[in-house]
């Protein structure tokens, strides 16, 4: 199966391991993720001001480029997915805004592209139960906290991937890989998001609450699909340890990194050494490295 794919800025730079592990895992499962031949930054925020049409231009250009090459567009990053999916819906529902934007970019986006997240694609097209069919479940017993964050799920009326209060999609994926999925209270609480740029202490507190909840549930690793969540949860753990004596640091991985390892793919390109809290000792101790 061939799907057009939008990596986005962060997956092409700071989160190359997310991209590499996602692409390799998809390939192993018979999904060929073909990168859009031309793309730009999505803007990393869906404009919440209704009079800000300019911020819709960047994601519309991405959708337009996708329209020239196919009818689906797959994203791995939660934020890119959120921005593209909401923009696509807005262009479909608000004809006057679509016309203005089309006039501005001097091309015509006909809102025919369907925006997908790799998680949805795996669940709906491949089926989680098929992921490790007949194979050995290499992640058996690894205690994992599935962290969804915000933008992968909300607003449900527009994203529609999973229940925003009791999501299952990451839980089910990880369970199908043999992981022991822990229940924890903060799986869709906010990590602080872009507050990282202006309010580092608040971001640290929000991220700490999530990690504390995951640790209290016995997790050995936290898993996410968002590079901003990954950064907020991972980067500040040194600070958290200094601030909260007794805080045990915990690796924060992308779901694709664990998926790739579970599928038995060589993990050299997965960027495991790039994380601030090194996941390799845990992986080595479980014979996964």
């Amino acid at each position: 199966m061939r799907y057009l794919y939008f990596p986005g800025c962060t997956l092409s730079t700071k989160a190359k391991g997310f991209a590499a592990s996602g692409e390799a895992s998809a390939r192993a499962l018979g999904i060929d993720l073909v990168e859009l031949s031309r793309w730009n930054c999505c803007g990393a925020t869906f404009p919440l001001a209704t009079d800000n049409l300019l911020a819709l231009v960047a994601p519309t250009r991405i959708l337009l480029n996708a329209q020239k090459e196919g009818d689906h567009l797959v994203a791995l990053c939660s934020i890119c997915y959120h921005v593209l999916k909401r923009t696509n819906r807005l262009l479909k529902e608000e004809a006057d805004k679509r016309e203005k934007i089309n006039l501005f970019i001097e091309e015509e986006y006909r809102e025919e592209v369907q925006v997908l997240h790799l998680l949805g694609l795996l669940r709906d097209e491949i089926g989680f139960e098929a992921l490790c069919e007949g194979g050995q479940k290499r992640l058996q017993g690894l205690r994992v906290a599935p962290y969804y964050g915000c933008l992968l799920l909300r607003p449900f009326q527009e994203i529609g991937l999973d229940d925003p209060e009791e999501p299952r999609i990451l839980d089910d994926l990880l369970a199908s890989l043999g992981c022991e999925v822990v229940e924890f209270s903060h799986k869709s609480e906010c990590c602080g998001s872009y507050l990282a740029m202006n309010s580092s202490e608040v971001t640290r507190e929000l991220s700490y609450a999530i990690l504390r909840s995951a640790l209290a549930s016995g997790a050995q690793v936290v898993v996410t699909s968002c590079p901003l969540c990954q950064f907020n949860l991972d980067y500040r753990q040194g600070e958290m340890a200094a601030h909260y004596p007794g805080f045990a640091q915990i690796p924060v991985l992308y779901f694709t990194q664990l998926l790739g390892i579970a599928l038995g793919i060589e993990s050299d390109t997965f960027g495991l050494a790039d994380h601030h809290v090194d996941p390799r000792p845990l992986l080595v101790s479980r014979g996964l490295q």
Partner: protein
Amino acid sequence: MRVGLSIRQTRGEFVKRVEEISGQEILACNQCGKCSAGCPAAMAMDLLPSQVIRLVQLGLEEALTSETIWLCASCLTCLSRCPKGVDLPRIMEALRQLVLRKEGDRLELSALPADFLSEAPQLAIIAGSRKYLS
């Protein structure tokens, strides 16, 4: 606090602008407080999210000087729980925009620590710029 109210104020220019930019009907909020109860950043805010919306309902521009509007991370938890379907993140955005469009930037990128900037993912910098720069 004694507050003088008039129809001129509660249906005045400020409220009109917030409603226009946010696309929300400000009086749809019945002050149940669910947004404040679930807001993950409420612990750091000077006013609760429901108090900010109350100020706007009363046409009081103090809402614009609250730290709360800059601590809203647009996580959309309040939106997904509001029984009245009020999109409070859009109201917060409208308030931020009113300040940014009048007073300019709230963030100086060059003042951020070099270590942070070299580690931060692109989308943090872009999203932060979108939210804090005019």
